[in-house]
């Protein structure tokens, strides 16, 4: 019997290790031969730990399973148990998705290269090995892929700049700093399908002439660090990385580098400083990292999801990928539905779903059962959206048009008990804590922002215009989006819930 128990950090945080141990113990006690696979998560986090059993009819799921449920599961022979969910891929939340980037996540054994290849892995790289650099970059451009790290810059154009740059060395740097609250797609991918990221980076190397890659991975992700490190090691031993990638005579190798708990190091130039061993302050642009990046060399900096989407583009073709989506947002996006929500998890789908459908229909509304008050989209620098904006389709331009951003596609749901005044204050506080210190509007402005919000909440309504002015100054005078976009959550909260910025709120509590 083959049983799957995810080793994903979220599953483990909900008790998956104890479940795995209980399964091994119970199988032994019953004298059953069980092969236990620690897969990635399918992304249905509210069902974790989600146990899958291989049957003649495919993989059937049970969840959420506690260690104490395990004897019962064996007793029913993994049949008609109260926790039975049926075939895992028929669970509506899963069945409705378009899994391209996450096709293998949760399906395969993350560190089995054989399993990876058996499910489409390396097909993209093999195809790329038969193409010229220009052809590789054109394929990416034609797919319509845009950066999934936040700024939405066309990936092919970035690669082309690096390809055309003359230098003795070039680098591929994967941004795995994933600091945005409400996001975990990078983590899930690295823990559940690490070879996919490695393959994407190798293709980026072939396309641009870079022979060295770095994954800058945040220290808050110990599981991802462990899995990626092991995967790089396996890939090197299998000849997928090294001086002779898959016997092609072309070289590409990579290293995992661990961040040190600074949110701003997700900003690409700050990340490069950090990688070089300096303080993570933001660099002025130009020069673009594509021309003068890591160690002064032309460098591709791309988000994990941008790079991990490259293999499927090469496997299925640019046109296949580009045919999904809406407007200038092509392909699929792994939505991360988080916060106070019933069906929290990752949902990969073509761009274009209205926000309300994502929150109410797919997310199932709030976990508390109370009405939704607001959804913060795109991390700590993203705006709060109210239910009156629920018809906004999920796309780069569409969210921009509503005074927001999609960022790394995290959605944090709040119910009607949330205090958006406190959240606005938190946004300023976070900016003050994480500011790299380079520009005054951000470093000092964020501290003033906290004080001003406190004044407003103590009843000084005259301070509201001060807050608005301060936000204008931060928007106009900040070098990067940490200072420049913190006004988004602050002003949108003020617009959406002015009552949360009055002292009456305290009386009501």
């Amino acid at each position: 019997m083959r049983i799957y128990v995810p080793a994903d950090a979220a599953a483990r945080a909900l008790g998956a290790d104890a479940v795995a141990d209980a399964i091994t113990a119970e199988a032994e006690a019953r004298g059953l031969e069980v092969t236990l696979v620690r897969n990635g998560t399918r992304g249905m986090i509210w069902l974790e730990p989600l146990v899958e059993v291989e049957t003649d009819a495919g993989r059937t799921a049970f969840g959420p399973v506690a260690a104490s449920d395990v004897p019962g599961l064996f007793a029913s022979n993994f049949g008609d148990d109260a926790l039975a969910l049926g075939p895992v891929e028929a669970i509506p939340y899963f069945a409705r998705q378009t899994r391209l980037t996450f096709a293998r996540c949760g399906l395969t054994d993350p560190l089995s290269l054989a399993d990876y290849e058996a499910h489409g892995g390396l097909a993209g790289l093999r195809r790329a090995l038969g193409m010229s650099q220009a052809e590789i970059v054109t394929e990416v451009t034609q797919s319509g892929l845009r950066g999934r790290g936040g700024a939405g810059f066309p990936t092919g154009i970035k690669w082309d700049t690096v390809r055309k740059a003359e230098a003795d060395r070039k680098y591929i740097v994967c941004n795995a700093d994933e600091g945005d609250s409400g996001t975990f797609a990078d983590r899930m991918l690295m823990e559940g399908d690490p070879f996919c990221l490695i393959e994407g980076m190798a293709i980026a190397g072939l396309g641009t002439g870079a022979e060295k890659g770095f994954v800058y991975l945040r220290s808050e992700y110990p599981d991802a660090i462990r899995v990626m490190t092991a995967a790089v090691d396996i890939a090197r031993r299998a000849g997928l990385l090294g001086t002779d990638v898959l016997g092609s005579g072309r070289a590409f190798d990579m290293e995992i580098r661990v961040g040190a708990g600074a949110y701003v190091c997700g900003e690409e130039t700050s990340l490069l400083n950090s990688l070089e061993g300096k303080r993570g302050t933001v660099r002025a642009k130009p020069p673009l990292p594509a021309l003068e990046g890591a160690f002064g060399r032309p460098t591709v900096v791309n988000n994990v999801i941008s790079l991990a989407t490259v293999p499927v583009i090469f496997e299925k073709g640019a046109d296949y990928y580009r045919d999904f989506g809406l407007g200038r947002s092509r392909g699929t996006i792994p939505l991360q539905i988080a916060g106070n929500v019933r069906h929290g998890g990752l949902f990969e789908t073509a761009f274009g779903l209205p926000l309300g459908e994502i929150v109410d229909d797919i997310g199932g509304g709030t976990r508390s059962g109370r009405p939704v008050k607001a959804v913060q989209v795109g991390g700590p620098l993203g705006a709060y959206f109210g239910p009156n904006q629920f018809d906004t389709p999920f796309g780069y331009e569409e969210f921009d048009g509503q005074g927001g951003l999609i960022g790394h596609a995290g959605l944090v749901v709040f119910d009607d008990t949330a205090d958006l005044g406190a959240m606005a204050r938190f946004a300023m506080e976070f900016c003050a804590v994480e500011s790299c210190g380079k520009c005054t509007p951000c470093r000092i402005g964020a501290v003033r922002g906290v004080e001003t919000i406190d004044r407003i909440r103590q009843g000084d309504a005259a301070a509201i215009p001060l807050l608005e002015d301060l936000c204008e100054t931060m928007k106009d005078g900040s070098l990067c989006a940490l200072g420049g976009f913190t006004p988004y959550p602050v002003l949108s909260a003020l617009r959406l819930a002015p009552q949360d910025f009055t002292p009456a709120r305290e009386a009501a509590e």
Partner: protein
Amino acid sequence: MSDASADLTEIDRIIDGHRTLEGPMLPILHAIQHAFGHIPEAAIARIAHALNLGRAEVHGVVSFYHDFRETPAGTHTLRICRAEACQAQGGAALEAAAQRRLATGWHGTGTCGVTLEPVYCLGLCACGPAVELDGQLHGRVDADRLETLLKEAGA
């Protein structure tokens, strides 16, 4: 060999082991912190010397990053996620309960030697509030669950 000189030997060994990397500073600091639980003052000069930098420069790097401690933490370290998705799920109440239980504020070391640190997202945003206790992650933690976890850890 005295403790201090044994420490220096260990520091030099760590530095040597990472020297040939491109951008060795962060890997060295992580390894030193892993070995000593913090970045000892003595390490700053050794790193500065090895990497041909000023001490102030190395110190500037250490102080920039939240992860690097200049003094040892307590026997246990509890990190509580303060970011938005956890706040949406009752994070503020958990923070308050933890501060009461441990009788300390952020960055302090309280009851039973538990150091309390804020963290901004552990990637468990769909199953918050999230905490990390002595390196282990836990999701959907409320005050009762936290109490159990602390007891299990002997705190």
